[in-house]
């Protein structure tokens, strides 16, 4: 297909209205010395590149392979993950909840989108959507089914509602057939959704 819209913009592309409003706030706060633009770049870089579900997956793989770590994590997750360097904004009060054949755990934030950032990064759009926030509590099994998770009837579903003070990390069940796998290989099976409770850990291929 020919590239038929004319490419030679006479001026720079105008950012969207909200983008300009954000720029305005940043300019005003920077002028007042309330904000350091370099610090903003560092925050964005961290959340785009260094902070994400692989941190949480590392924690889960450790819990699967080290009984002492698992016990410490269930006892005081905030302190335990802090020792691994996974701390910061929205990571102050983390509780680890472990899936078992008797109980599947699932996390929501009905207020807004509280989420354990240092362990899972920025929440996905669906986690922030009204639909998920409203329905996770009301009809968790139906929501799980939409994520492709079908649990046996004897497995109870417990939904944890996050707050600004308390955030949850789900420890999914370790998949069958993973005996003898090392921690790094196990961590690769731990998906983001499995740590929110809307998925299960992947089976080894």
């Amino acid at each position, binding site marked *: 297909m020919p590239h038929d819209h004319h490419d030679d913009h006479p001026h720079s592309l105008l950012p969207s209205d909200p983008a300009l409003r954000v720029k*305005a*706030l940043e300019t005003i706060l920077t002028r007042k010395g309330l904000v350091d633009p370099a610090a903003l770049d560092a925050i964005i870089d961290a959340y785009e590149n260094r902070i994400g579900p692989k941190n949480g997956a590392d924690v889960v793989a450790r819990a699967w392979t080290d009984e002492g770590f698992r016990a410490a994590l269930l006892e005081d997750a905030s302190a335990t993950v802090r020792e691994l360097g996974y701390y910061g904004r929205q990571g102050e009060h983390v509780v680890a909840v472990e899936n078992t054949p008797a109980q599947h755990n699932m996390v929501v934030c009905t207020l807004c989108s509280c989420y354990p950032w240092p362990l899972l990064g920025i929440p996905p759009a669906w986690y922030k959507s009204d639909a998920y926030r409203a329905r996770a509590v009301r009809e968790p099994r139906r929501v799980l089914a939409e994520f492709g998770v079908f649990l046996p009837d004897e497995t109870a579903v417990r939904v944890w509602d996050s707050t600004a003070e308390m955030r949850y990390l789900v420890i999914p069940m370790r998949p069958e057939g993973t005996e003898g796998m090392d921690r790094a290989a196990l961590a690769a099976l731990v998906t983001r959704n499995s740590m929110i409770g809307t998925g299960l850990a992947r089976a080894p291929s």
Partner: protein
Amino acid sequence: MTRPEPAFAEPWHAQVFALTVHLNETGRLPWTDWADRFGATLARHGLARDLDGGDDYFTAWLETLEAVLAETGAADPKEAMQVKQAWETAYLATPHGQPVHLKD
């Protein structure tokens, strides 16, 4: 392995997020207050229609931050409007491909 989703769908989502986190980290915005205010904005918007957690979500985020900064006096709404206008003018006056700067 599937490619990870980008953390932010739009650059301005990242900017407004970072601005808020930075204000919190420098002690200017207690996070519990923020969560309450933001939750209230989401609830108000959600009454009219379902929010999809993408652009809608950060639009609510921005609206909340503007309101908080207006209240604390950190960024007066009239001034914010003027600076936004100045940025718009600067973009329109800058040839494509050149860095955009505010005058003064």
